[in-house]
């Protein structure tokens, strides 16, 4: 399947997260608009703000005499609030492209993800700027840089919970998912769309008890990833990679949590990008260690995955061309 189609599928897989984020940004925009408008001056504004329930019961003109017209922001606060509004508008204008990171060949995955998340973090900075301005506490010299990006490390837990997730398009040679580990928190969802030769089980390095991890060559299999309410990482990989699903809801032990496991028929014996054959084999070995039911005799288990794993181990010859 062409990469663009796979990206579309990946975007759909994080759609609930992106919608949540967009909705939060749009709500903040509405709040800013309402803040800049104050309580509204016209009789129509007053009537509408009082709601339909009051219609026929409350005399709007008399009621308006008691509402505070001065709830508008101070003139000095208007400039930073408008800057925040622009920043939010910029993010909204980006649409889905905000959530798709196309990694240029050879770029450092971790650095690029940090940069994109900082851009996304501008939404939270903007809200912060508005709060400061509302309270008359905004200081140009101290706070002007807030809208230049907010590093993920500085996001609050509530902000992290609103993270939209990312789709990352990259070449197999740049596929070093361990570099995104610092961002796996509070429901973050990342889907890698990997082109070309890639390490066969690189995502195994991200397996932790509470994170949903999925490697698949089948783009249609991301329903469980989408439905999972917590942090999750998936990779759409070329054929020949390991296929597995680590579902935290499936059990207490790691091997119970591996609901799907298909290992590659052959173990690659050459380096891909900076990842040596030994490292790739270690990825696979890690996967087997985590996913296969331990046998009391020390031999490979009798289940199909266990047998396959035992066979793979016997095939592993690291004296290849890597």
């Amino acid at each position, binding site marked *: 399947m062409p990469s663009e189609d796979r990206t579309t599928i990946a975007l759909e897989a994080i759609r609930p997260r992106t919608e949540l984020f967009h909705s939060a940004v749009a709500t903040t925009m509405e*709040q800013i608009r309402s803040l800049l*408008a104050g309580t509204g001056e016209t009789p129509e504004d007053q009537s509408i703000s009082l709601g339909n329930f009051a219609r026929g019961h409350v005399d709007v003109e008399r009621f308006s005499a008691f509402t505070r017209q001065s709830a508008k922001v101070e003139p000095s606060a208007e400039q930073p609030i408008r800057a925040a509004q622009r920043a939010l508008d910029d993010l909204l204008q980006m649409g889905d492209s905000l959530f798709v990171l196309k990694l240029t060949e050879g770029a450092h995955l971790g650095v690029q993800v940090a940069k994109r998340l900082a851009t996304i973090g501008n939404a939270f900075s903007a809200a912060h700027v508005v709060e400061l301005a509302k309270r008359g506490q905004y200081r140009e010299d101290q706070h002007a840089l807030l809208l230049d990006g907010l590093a993920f490390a500085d996001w609050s837990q509530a902000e992290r919970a609103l993270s939209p997730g990312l789709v990352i398009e990259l070449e197999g040679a740049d596929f070093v998912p361990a570099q995104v580990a610092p961002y796996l928190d509070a429901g973050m969802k990342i889907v890698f769309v990997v082109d070309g030769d890639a390490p066969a089980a690189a995502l195994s390095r991200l397996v932790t008890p509470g994170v949903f991890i999925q490697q698949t060559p089948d783009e249609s299999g991301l329903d469980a990833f989408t439905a999972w309410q917590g942090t999750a990482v998936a990779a759409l990989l070329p054929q020949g990679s390991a296929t597995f699903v680590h579902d935290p809801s499936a059990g207490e032990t790691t091997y119970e949590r591996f609901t799907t496991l298909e290992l590659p028929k052959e173990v690659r014996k050459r380096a891909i990008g900076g990842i040596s054959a030994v490292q790739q084999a270690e990825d696979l070995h890690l996967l087997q260690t985590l996913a296969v039911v331990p046998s009391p005799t020390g031999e490979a288990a009798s289940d199909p995955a266990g047998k396959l794993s035992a066979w793979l181990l016997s095939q592993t010859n690291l004296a290849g061309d890597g």
Partner: protein
Amino acid sequence: MSVADKKSIDFMEVPEHTVEIITNSGEGAQKCAQIFGQTCAKMGNGVWTVEIIPAEIEPPHHTVTSTSGNIIRFGTEKITNWGDQSKLAVAFNDQVLLSRHRLDSLKDDCIILLESCWQDHEDEKIRRMYEEAMDEMSTKNYRFVLVPIEEEALKIVDNPSHGKNMFALGMLAEIYQRDVSIIEKQIAHIFRFKPPKVTEKNIELVASGIKWARENLDFQFNIKSIPFDEERIVMNGNQAAAIGAIAAGMELCAMYPITPATSVSHELSEIIESYGGMVHQAEDEIAAAGVAIGASYAGKVALTVTSGPGMALKTEFLALAIMVEIPLVVLDVQRGGPSTGLPTKVEQSDLLSSLYGQPGDAPRVVIAPRTIEECFHSMITARRIAETFRCVVIVLTDANLATGVQQFTRPPLDVRWQQGAADQSPVPEGLRPYEWDLETGLSRRIIPGSPGGQHTVTGLAHDEESLVSYHPSSNELGMKMRSRKLAVFQSTLMPPELHGEEEGDLLVVGWGSTEGAIVEAVDRARSEGYKVSTCQLTFLSPLEPGLKEMFSRFENVMTVEINYSDTPGDPYINDETRRYGQLAWLLRAHTLVDIDCWTSCPGQPLRPRDIYTKIIAKLEPNKEGVAA
């Protein structure tokens, strides 16, 4: 019953019908009715639904106390109440049906689709119960149609308890010619969090019910719908209140689960975070009130949701909010009381406790939506009043509105509903936290973080500086100012509208969810020439102006309410001992008019026919066959 020839189908066109689906608790009557009601509404019919829910989680099955169900009244025109009696019932066993018969819920010629497995059941005791039930019901001309509901469901699912309801839904879809594609969408939506095969099985069961009805029933009803050119939405009152809270810009809902209010927070928790808000489930009712007050103190728009027993627990905290003048909206979804009372049943139980359930004087605004649509809009108005007058606004809905489903015009959302966010601009030097305008009692609400606005609040008597003060004049002034705000708000209210003539022999006064049933009863009496009008109050504290003058234009004034009052003529009940319905108490005290009341607390909504009977009894006490 033999298979009917399709040509002999009796196809009846009727303006409206009332259907009951009655089962043991846990057999899915609610889901079946929910989908059926939603489908009717989406097809353009007027709809009103009422849930029948036992208070116990799982009462003994196949008994008269285990009845769980739903009543759906739907018609060509707008439907405003549950009507008088059901014309068709689907019953999963004889005992739940018997319970409805004993409540006189079924019309004399009601068509009853009854599960067929009980009459020949292997257990003799069950067979005997069935025979006795049928014998008891033989006083009516019900038309029984025996349906192998369980047998048919078992062809598709292993556990009939998880399938009979959808089979029943299929039968109703065929009988009333419902749009199956809407039903399928509703099923998919309800089971959206379950594996797809659950949806598929349910749709298969519906299809099986349709097929069975098509092959075996010889009647159908057609209830036309009038096409509408506006967007409409279908929901229950708790959903409407939840979405209304979001539309009103509420940022925090603090609550503790309590029937029948809990689903407000369920609805909110699914969506409020998308709008920058949150639901906080506190450790108890008291804490929930405290959290909401704290959030409001900090400048947020806060709501707490509860029901009667929760209101009782929140009493002291609500007094704090009133004392320190922190705006707060409280949604009280009333249920039957006192004590644990009737958790799942309707009662207009909390009017007086909402008004006066506090030591000392603690004035607050109390409003009561009359319809599900008003549950939405009341949240917007409640917020605006709370913020404008720095007061507590209690919104009284009830179990009837909470769980009933109705369609209404989709409100065009307006950003101005959310306008006027807390003013956090710097506080002018010298402005005190309670800088009361001595004429209106109003003062600027100062958010603690605003520059120059640092202050503490206290539930103790305090002065304008918000400092504890036991000086006699301070306490007197604080009391006066808090009370004055209500008088000022009352000055903005308009006299309530009358339904009917401006003067006459009887004025029926109601409040809240009873409007539809009262108007229907009054219209019935008016069509017979009686000079009766009605007025439904929505602002209960302060009361709308002009009531005394309005009452003076009628020979008699009588409230109709779903709560308790003594019945004249009962032992020991005389003019000195008689206790009145809650609104009657309030209006008598407020207007000094000798207002009568007819109230009832059966744990279910009032029926138009019962109100009609009382109206006639009031107007013609000597008329034969009419009990006063």
